[in-house]
């Protein structure tokens, strides 16, 4: 009997139209849990470094986390993995919503797509019945339109549908996979789906999901709900409202955007607008929120409501939005919120990532204004900023004219344009557009997170440790009083001693050893979530969440029937972490790729940064080039990775390089 998971994957060969239900090895669950962990293992085994993003051999995996579909609140995550057209690395983009639990109930842990279909198709999974159906008639439809059309056609109003819009069909490098309430937006996985000629995947599942130790599991679930209730009544004091509560940032619930609009950058991540948030603006934007936001929305089995139904036409829900996508279009175009919510409806139907798309359009406008791209490249483009954004979006998703170049994202577009355009693709990590954030003094922990995070998105590595200390030591101590979440008490001391200014402040404090531990802890929590399918919003992302390193082991053991304790979980997580990295090292990722956007901080400390990076690598069991050492790979049971690295010369026998420099100070 398998608990929490189903023990079966769906293998779909699109080239031959072949569908297989394959039993999985329970040993792999012990070694990697599920979700990201087992996705990474499949990629290691089956997608060599010679495979590029649009090759038929590239896989597109929809992998549910181990606990998805159980009663654990927010256990609804699906990890979508593929080789990204943007980074050319192993990518994982995570969606919530309703798709994962439905897939589990249909009897599958993962859908593994390989090959390419000759014609446009969609996949229909209804419990044991799985078929590839003709999807030619869906070509050109928006992502939500597609989902509706598929549900109507199948007469299955309750089917969960993941689909792509025009952007995915036309292989825009930042195309998303949309799912209504949620999406897998980052790193262009919608383009891979489009390249495979799969317009949508519809799932309906009606089977049970089993729990190994029901009473222990439910006790934890009930406690977590109780905790959430109390925690919602008692937001963390002294931090900004969006950091005070649980869930992903509550952008849909708040009206006050003074902090974002005055501290984050406008346009192509360059312009800070101090004093922007006037009373008039506040009133106008509140009005927009109150007229266009019709309902706050949860994902499957979660008491938080991070999303919202947005109405831009006569319907009460034209699309569903969450988090910072609320502001990215508005700020990219120097426009107002009404525009932002309206264009986001089109962008969602087209299926594009809400960080990369507006950034790429703002980048194009800058290139035009600075004469790097001639006006003749923009025939018929309106004069006003809003009109230009609509025009550009349309060109990009159709890959028409300059849109074809821009559809490759700022990094690759700049390469194609040349003429100094590279300097305008300035807000990227690993070739991917980031939050438009520019700050003063280097935060050394964020430096490490930006540099080494392989999700290529800061929100997917930061979280449980506060971004800054409070004004006074007393407030720090107040915060650490009820902070059982930390791995051990050292973390509390480090936080208590941390100061805004003076000796114990960034970038020298927390000192190197502490900084490594703090960064590692935060990343570890994300890797745990991504393997078991909990939402970061109730675990790795907010301060003081209901799920943490001390109760998740019980959740896993009681839920899935695996023997699990803290040490084992940390060890398995290290294994998964290193396997993700191994996939990318094999694809050529090295130390020189690991850096934040050049202009992220005004005050940089090159020597300190280099030393920190080295120290962190060594702390992680990687050598100075960021490659997991033979010793550490063998310790983690990843001998097969070590052997390949030795064979291909990526690692030298003996690992001399790794041992040469001293460890953490």
């Amino acid at each position, binding site marked *: 009997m398998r608990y929490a998971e189903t023990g079966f994957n769906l293998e779909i060969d699109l080239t031959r139209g072949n569908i297989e239900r394959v039993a999985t090895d329970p040993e792999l669950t012990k070694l990697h849990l599920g979700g990201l962990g087992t996705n990474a293992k499949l990629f290691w085994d089956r997608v060599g470094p010679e495979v590029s993003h649009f090759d038929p051999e590239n896989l597109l995996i929809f992998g549910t986390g181990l606990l998805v*579909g*159980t*009663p654990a*609140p927010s256990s609804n995550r699906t990890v979508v993995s593929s080789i990204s057209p943007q980074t050319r690395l192993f990518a994982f983009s995570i969606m919530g919503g*309703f798709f994962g639990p439905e897939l589990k*109930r249909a009897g599958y842990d993962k859908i593994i797509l390989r090959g390419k279909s000759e014609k446009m198709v969609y996949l229909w999974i209804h419990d044991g019945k799985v078929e590839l159906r003709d999807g030619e008639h869906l070509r050109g439809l928006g992502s*939500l339109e597609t989902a*509706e059309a598929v549900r109507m056609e199948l007469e299955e*109003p*309750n089917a969960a549908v993941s689909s792509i819009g025009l952007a995915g069909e036309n292989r825009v490098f930042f195309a998303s996979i949309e799912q*209504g*309430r949620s999406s897998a937006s980052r790193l262009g996985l919608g383009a891979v789906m489009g390249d495979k000629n799969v317009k949508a995947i519809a799932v309906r599942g*009606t*089977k*049970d*999901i*089993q*729990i190994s130790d*029901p*009473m222990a*599991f*439910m006790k934890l679930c*009930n406690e977590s*709900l109780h905790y*959430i*209730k109390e925690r*919602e009544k008692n937001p963390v004091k002294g931090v900004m409202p969006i950091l005070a509560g649980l869930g992903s940032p509550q952008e849909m619930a708040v009206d006050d955007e003074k902090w974002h609009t005055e501290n984050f950058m406008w346009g192509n991540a360059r312009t800070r607008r101090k004093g922007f948030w006037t009373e008039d603006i506040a009133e106008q934007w509140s009005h927009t929120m109150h007229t266009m936001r*019709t*309902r*706050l*929305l*949860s*994902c*499957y*089995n*979660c*008491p938080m*409501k991070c999303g919202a*139904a947005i109405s831009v036409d006569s*319907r*009460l*829900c*034209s699309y*569903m939005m969450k988090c910072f996508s609320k502001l990215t279009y508005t700020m990219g175009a120097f426009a107002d919120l009404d525009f932002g919510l309206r264009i986001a409806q089109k962008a969602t139907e087209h299926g594009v990532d809400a960080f990369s798309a507006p950034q790429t359009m703002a980048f194009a406008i800058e290139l035009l204004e600075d004469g790097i791209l001639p006006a003749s490249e923009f025939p018929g483009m309106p004069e006003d900023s809003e009109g230009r954004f609509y025009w550009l979006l349309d060109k990009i998703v159709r890959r028409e004219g300059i849109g074809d170049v821009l559809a490759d994202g700022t990094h690759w577009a700049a390469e194609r344009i040349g003429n100094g355009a590279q300097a305008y693709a300035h807000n990227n990590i690993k070739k991917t557009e980031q939050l438009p954030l520019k700050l003063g003094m280097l935060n050394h922990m964020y430096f490490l997170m930006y540099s080494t995070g392989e999700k290529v998105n800061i929100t997917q590595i930061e979280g449980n440790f506060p971004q800054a200390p409070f004004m006074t030591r007393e407030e720090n101590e107040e915060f650490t009083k009820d902070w059982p979440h930390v791995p051990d008490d050292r973390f509390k001391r480090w936080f208590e001693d941390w100061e805004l200014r003076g000796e114990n402040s960034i970038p020298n404090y927390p000192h190197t050893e502490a900084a490594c531990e703090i960064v590692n802890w935060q990343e570890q929590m994300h890797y745990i979530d991504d393997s078991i399918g909990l939402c970061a919003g109730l675990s790795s992302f907010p301060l003081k969440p209901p799920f943490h390193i001390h109760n998740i082991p019980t959740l896993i053991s009681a839920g899935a029937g695996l023997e699990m304790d803290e040490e084992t979980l940390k060890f398995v997580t290290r294994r998964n972490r290193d396997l993700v990295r191994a996939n990318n090292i094999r694809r050529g990722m090295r130390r020189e790729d690991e850096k934040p956007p050049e202009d992220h901080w005004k005050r940089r400390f090159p020597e300190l940064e280099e030393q920190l990076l080295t120290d962190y690598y060594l702390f992680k069991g990687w050598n100075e080039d960021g490659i997991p050492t033979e010793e550490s790979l063998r310790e983690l049971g990843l001998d097969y990775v070590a052997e390949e690295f030795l064979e291909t010369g990526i690692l030298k026998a003996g690992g001399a390089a790794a041992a040469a420099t001293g460890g953490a100070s």
Partner: protein
Amino acid sequence: MSEPKKKKTIKRIIIDVDKCNGCQGCEVICSAFHATPQYSSNNPERSRIRVIRDPLADIYIPVYAGEYTAAECAGRDKYMIDGKEYEECAFCRASCPSRDAFKEPDSGLPLKCDMCESDPTLDEPMCVQWCLAGALVFDVREEEVEEEEQEPEELDLGIEALANRHGWETVLAAVSRLSKKDD
């Protein structure tokens, strides 16, 4: 009127459809609570509360399983409430041949909400405990009733938020009519 009065406990769940967002938490916990052994599995298909969801129409209606009916209704009406169009079935509690809701997926036997009857009695039914959105509110009242009056312990499908709006009485009347049909 000198007949003896008797106290009776009336248990109701008040549904505020405006607060529901279709998370299915109530379905998860109801089916887990009624699993054998308790909590050993979950499956919204087995839940005695189902949420009629149509996100793009902004429709989210929790409906409790009521009586079994052998035949489906002959005609179907539509309701317009607040500019939204609802199928009559959206409000119906019956386990009915026309749909899958409120039937055991394996046996096809009808399901009915039992208010989480258990020993010891729960403070609140599980679905109410798990709906942190506040769409389901438990309400217990002592009421004096005429002795011979057989008040069925029925859930109140009054939908508070819409109750004051014009025309809702019609809906309520139709719903209660429907739920008593073909007993």
